[in-house]
């Protein structure tokens, strides 16, 4: 009768540990919103009183909006291009049995095991030797590079759980490969594509090291925040911005993870 084996039975000690772990994980981050409403430029106890004036100052901060807009542009471009490359790669790797597939996938996944500073420095040298100026385009290039492995890793499971016979059925019924792709393959992998887009956008939006090395005069939001940290009087503005960024990225990541996992559950339910 007992469905749970003794191995899987609830464990009180571990449960307490899990909750304290989550507190450790979220605790420090929650001080940002807490102090962003505090009526003092110091992030210290006791709290002085509730205020939203830091948010008012922040919303009138023109350079901050420019940096945010830059980040959004870079993020959207990196996400779309990286997902496109990831899509090609994931499809090729799962659909065909290629000779030498392992080393090829290893090369594509390399950015995952190379520190960001190496990628940034190597690209910086190449671009300057070729005579390119550092702009938001160079930052985007760096971000595409680190996003492609994540895009592929997100898309491969989606393609793997894919029933090949559906494509074959479409081909048997007379659809050409292009039509088959748009009418059969694409709708099935769509949740994976959305998850990959959201994931790549968040990675690019948060990335600091490569952006720091490859940005020219125009910077992304993390660079702007980093610059602000030198001035104690700008601290509350950073707290407000941080609060908003954290809230928005929580929502975006939650949606992307949910889509990714829901997609996988759908498949296991169907087969």
């Amino acid at each position, binding site marked *: 009768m007992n469905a749970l084996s003794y191995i899987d039975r609830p464990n009180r000690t571990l449960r307490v540990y899990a909750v304290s*772990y989550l507190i450790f994980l979220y605790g420090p981050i929650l001080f940002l919103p807490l102090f962003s409403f505090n009526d003092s430029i110091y992030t*210290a106890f006791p709290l002085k009183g509730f205020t939203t004036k830091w948010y008012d100052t922040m919303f009138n901060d023109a350079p901050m909006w420019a940096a945010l807009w830059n980040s959004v542009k870079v993020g959207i471009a990196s996400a779309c291009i990286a997902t496109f490359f990831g899509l090609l790669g994931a499809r090729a790797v799962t659909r065909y049995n290629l000779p030498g597939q392992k080393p090829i996938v290893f*090369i594509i996944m390399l950015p995952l095991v190379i*520190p960001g500073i*190496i990628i940034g420095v190597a*690209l910086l*040298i190449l671009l300057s030797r070729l005579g390119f100026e550092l702009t938001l385009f160079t930052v985007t290039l760096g971000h595409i590079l680190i996003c492609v492995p994540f895009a592929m890793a997100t898309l491969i499971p989606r393609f793997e759980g894919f029933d090949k016979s559906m494509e074959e059925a479409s081909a048997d019924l007379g659809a050409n490969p292009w039509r088959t792709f748009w009418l059969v393959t694409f709708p099935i992998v769509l949740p994976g594509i959305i998850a990959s887009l959201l994931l790549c956008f968040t990675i690019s939006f948060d990335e600091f090291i490569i952006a720091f090395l490859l940005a020219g005069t125009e910077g992304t939001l993390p660079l702007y925040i980093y610059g602000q940290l030198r001035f104690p009087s700008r601290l509350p503005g950073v707290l407000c911005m941080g609060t908003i960024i954290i809230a928005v990225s929580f929502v975006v990541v939650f949606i992307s993870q949910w889509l990714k996992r829901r997609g996988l559950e759908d498949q296991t339910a169907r087969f």
Partner: protein
Amino acid sequence: MSDRGLEAGTPQTHTRTLRAWLYSRFLRSEALRGFALLSPTLLLMICAMCLPFGIMVVISFWTQTGFEFNQGFHLDNYAEFAERPAYRVLLLRSLVISAACTFATVLLSYPMAYYVAFHVHKHKMAWLILMTLPFWTSYLLRIFAWKIVLGFNGVINSGLMTLGVIDQPLEFLLYSPSSVVVTLTHAWAAFAILPIYVSLEKIDRSLLEAATDLGDGPAKRFFGVTLPLSLPGVIAASLMIFIPTVGDFVTPAMVGGPDGLMIANIIQAQFGVVNNWPRGAALALTMMVTITSVSLAYIWATRRLTGRVS
């Protein structure tokens, strides 16, 4: 049918049939189509990663004179690394800090991953998302959060002073190697869980039941079966944290202070204020080679230790 037979003689249709033949050949050859599909991605990776890396290797043998590069083959930058102990100290410190952070992260994340894999039955997905969510929020802001917590006028100091536990702020909290370790551990904790969780989830429960039936207690069962079988996840998690943290320069710059500076800070400076790109390239390569050797040695050692199991 007869039309096609008649036309086959003319030269134009010859090329047309050849092209059609090549096209059908292309469509039929699985490997060719696969490579065609894969080539843009592969080409991007080669042009934007392998090529720059090669140029970096070349430049590391140049030297800088004023604003010009002195091309040719010199070993000056590497000789400098060998002669000046400051670089070695920084590299060693980076390795120690990253190793400590990796160890702490894996140690803290393992029970958490174990809990979700074995003891959570409802809302598993919610738990997983909740645990990995902080990893995807701004890295910079998570580090900044620790500056607020550990700072001279920060949460811990002001909190303890308000409570009357201490009357002077504790200065050792921020700007030290240990504050870098704490900050990095928190920043990467959410990332370590996933690979460990995946490897734990894969374990066949009947193996554990078999171990118990054969008389193993919980401790022996864990160290004899669960832990060895989850090692691939532990290795993956360790490398995923160790490799990027050695090359991090924001965290040490923000919470490290002068004693907490790491090798990446010096590398970054060569491409910024110091403006000595060849030396920066040489240092970056030295760091890369060191990271790779340490990682390979780690994989080899863990494989050897557990060789009897797998």
